[in-house]
């Protein structure tokens, strides 16, 4: 059992969620309400990581974050951070890769809130923030929760993009999914099996728990 890899995966999942959640809430809510002409393009870009092969996405991320790219150079010069083959690069890749898993459930949840409720809140004197926290988030919560769980579980199991951008540096970029692959490559099937079982149990528990919670939280109308 590669505990280091598991810990790293859990870390990556938490940090990804932490970084992505505020952005996901904002983008999902905006997409739910906006009527701009280029909405279909934005929605298309949001879904893109879902349909693109992870290697393709990983390749582009590698190229755009690498030391010879303007972004990579800027990060290196300003913060002294090299994005490829280290944890912070992994986080950026993971955030981008998880956008559809978080944004889509959130968008659907906000879309399901009748417009009159927001209007009634405004007429009742609630500010936009009060309305957001007391009405919208509470009503959209099952959707937000399922997006969060999907993102978390999906990050734990992420393989292709992580391998492309992070390589397989123990303690830095070697996540549990990559560790399993390594074990299989070196014919350590027992070790691979342990970790695979672990990942399976963790993922299933999280998803089922989120469905239970959503059903309990869903408000009857």
């Amino acid at each position, binding site marked *: 059992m590669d505990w280091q890899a598991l810990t790293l995966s859990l870390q990556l999942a938490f940090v990804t969620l932490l970084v992505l959640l505020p952005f996901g809430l904002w983008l999902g809510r905006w997409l739910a309400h906006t009527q701009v002409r280029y909405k279909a393009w934005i929605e298309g870009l949001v879904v893109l990581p879902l349909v693109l092969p992870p290697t393709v996405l990983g390749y582009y991320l590698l190229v755009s974050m690498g030391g010879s790219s303007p972004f990579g150079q800027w990060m290196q010069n300003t913060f002294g951070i090299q994005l490829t083959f280290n944890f912070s690069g992994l986080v950026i890749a993971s955030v981008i890769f998880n956008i559809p898993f978080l944004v889509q459930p959130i968008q659907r949840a906000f879309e399901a809130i009748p417009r009159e409720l927001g209007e*009634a809140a405004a007429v*009742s004197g609630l*500010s936009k923030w009060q309305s957001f926290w007391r009405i919208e988030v*509470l009503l959209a919560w099952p959707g937000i929760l399922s997006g969060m769980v999907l993102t978390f579980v999906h990050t734990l199991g992420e393989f292709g993009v992580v391998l492309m951008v992070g390589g397989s540096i123990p303690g830095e970029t070697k996540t549990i999914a990559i560790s399993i692959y390594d074990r299989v490559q070196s014919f350590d099937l027992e070790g691979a099996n342990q970790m695979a079982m672990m990942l399976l149990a963790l993922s299933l528990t999280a998803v089922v728990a989120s469905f239970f919670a959503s059903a309990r939280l869903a*408000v*009857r109308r």
Partner: protein
Amino acid sequence: MTHTSPALHVSVEQSQPMPLKGSFQCESGQLLALVGPSGAGKTSLMRILSGLMQPHHGKVIVGDEIWCDTDNHICLPPQRRHVGMVFQDYALMPHFDAIENVSLPLLHLPRAERTKQAKQWLDHVGLTHAEQHRKPADLSGGQQQRVAVARALAREPKLMLLDEPFSAVDQMNRQSLYRLLADLRRELAIPIILVTHDLNEARMLADQLVVIDNGHILQQGTPSAIYNAPRNARVADLVGIHNRFLGEWIGPSEQSGQGLLRWKGKGLPLNKQPILSVRDKGRLPEGQPVNWVIPSDGIALIKKNEIARENDFHAEVTESRHLGEINLLTLTIKEVPGAEFVLTLSGSFRKNLAVGTKLGIRLDLSLVHVMPIRADGKGKSKHRTEYPLKL
């Protein structure tokens, strides 16, 4: 605040996103009903009043507060307007119980005080203590509406808006809600605006009617003023005045204050067209084509052998529809082909008036109201047979 200015003054003019044009006012303690077919702009007007929508050009003045004045770039958001609004589907928060819903406009108060006041408002609208702890899904339509009213009242409104509040409530609950509304009107010294497409409701509850069609505010007045003197044929159609006829204004008669009206029938030669002596307000040019209406108070049924005067006509029952305690009767007039009277009758004698019965009709010509048909087509009859509003 000066006592001469109305408590609410609204004027709007815009062509986008939907056309709206006109103005109306409402005094404190008055109930004003906004009536018109669906899509006429009633809900848009409500949204402008509540601040949910900004008119392209317009003014909303409540008491001595200017809520919206586009000329001076003023448009207060709903949060700063103190409007009590009852939405069409109530718009109650499904995740809050009744008390929490009514607490929403009271967020500026400490929690204990908020809950106390919310309970008081719910007591006031007649919700039991058990019901006060229920979520909207566990309340009946009528109870949900009472919660919505309590929430609107808790806002300490300076203007009350009710958007089709009775549409989703059954007849039995409706009666008790009418009583609630009547109580509110007595105790609230603010303007109350009611949007409805039910004319009976509007006539029964409102002090003032505002008729709106296709975004245009056509007429404001007391219900009886509008029913007795609709501004044009469209208003007459919209408020469900059936007895509207075509005519031509001949000019003043020898009697002072009286004028002569030619009642035009289909294919009737000029010398056969009846001439009616009606009130003359001195506004119409000679030869002006007109629509004219007569309220049902001005129509009496008489026996055939009583027909004697120039305002008596021969009539025949062509249709009699039995609608519970009333009959809807259609009569044709022998002297004027194409002219049809529609009357509602109650009482036992209506049973004697089967289809084909011949009788007389006596018109009280002092109640005839004449409306010019303008060349621009505005006052023109569209010969609508359907009545877009519920009668």
